[in-house]
């Protein structure tokens, strides 16, 4: 698999580690426990286009939001997580 890091260019997936789905949003500290349980554990686990968090661990060390097809393994889009989040 090749992920095109927005900073470093296309790299093999051995340079990255994957955390998992990018969509779950961390609840506020006082949100009900059920929300926290869901955030940490429950996954949509899509077949098809899936947004994920990848870390360019052996490169620029950016956390990336990678949109990838879990069925074809095609990489659809890659953005730096920090920029993705900071965008207004």
């Amino acid at each position, binding site marked *: 698999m090749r992920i095109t890091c927005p900073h470093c260019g296309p*790299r093999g997936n051995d340079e990255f580690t994957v955390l998992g789905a990018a969509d779950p949003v961390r609840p506020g500290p006082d949100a009900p426990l059920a929300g926290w349980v869901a955030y940490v554990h429950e996954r949509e686990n899509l077949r098809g286009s899936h947004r994920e968090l990848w870390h360019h661990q052996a490169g620029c060390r*950016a956390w990336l939001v990678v949109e990838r097809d879990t069925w074809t393994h095609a990489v659809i889009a890659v953005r730096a997580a920090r920029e993705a989040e900071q965008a207004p």
Partner: protein
Amino acid sequence: MADLAMRTPLAGHLKAGRHGRAEGTPGLHVTERGHLATAAIALRAGQQAALAAALRDGFGLDLPQRPGCAGSGAVELVWNGPGQWLALDSAREGIGRFGFARELAARLGAAASVTDLTGARAVLRLTGPAVRDTLAKLLPVDLHESVFPAGAATLTLASHIGVTLWRPDEAAWDIACYRSFGESLAHAVVEAAAEFGCEVTAG
């Protein structure tokens, strides 16, 4: 006050002399850049322009915005991730090197955080006709002139070791890793160059 001898990261790990194929001119020359003053520069929020200006004014350096390197006199900058650079100074010596980070910090002020990394990296200088073929055995990045010209830099894995590779000029290729990995990287480089013949000179 005690007088402490310094030891470069690869001292004892890089044997000077000819390795691998003994006939003909060596394909690869290796030396350690073991005496660099080294510092990390971390950009502070919103200070991009200020940092670039301070480096230009203070050192005559063009801050690489993407993977790349820049040099001016004895000072070099190598991109080391978004908002992070390695700064190297080859002019200072011995404990004088610890002044480099201090000077940087003073000149960059609020534009960046500076951390002294002197001695934290093992750095090899590679030259010779077989540099590309040697490096191809170690790392997956395209090193073709059209893609990786002088002034280019990259962060990647070489033989399972995280490295920074940059081309300060046409002839030279510098590769750095964490100091602790130095022996393994040096071994991998010399081994990969064996078929071309490899000449190691003391740095």
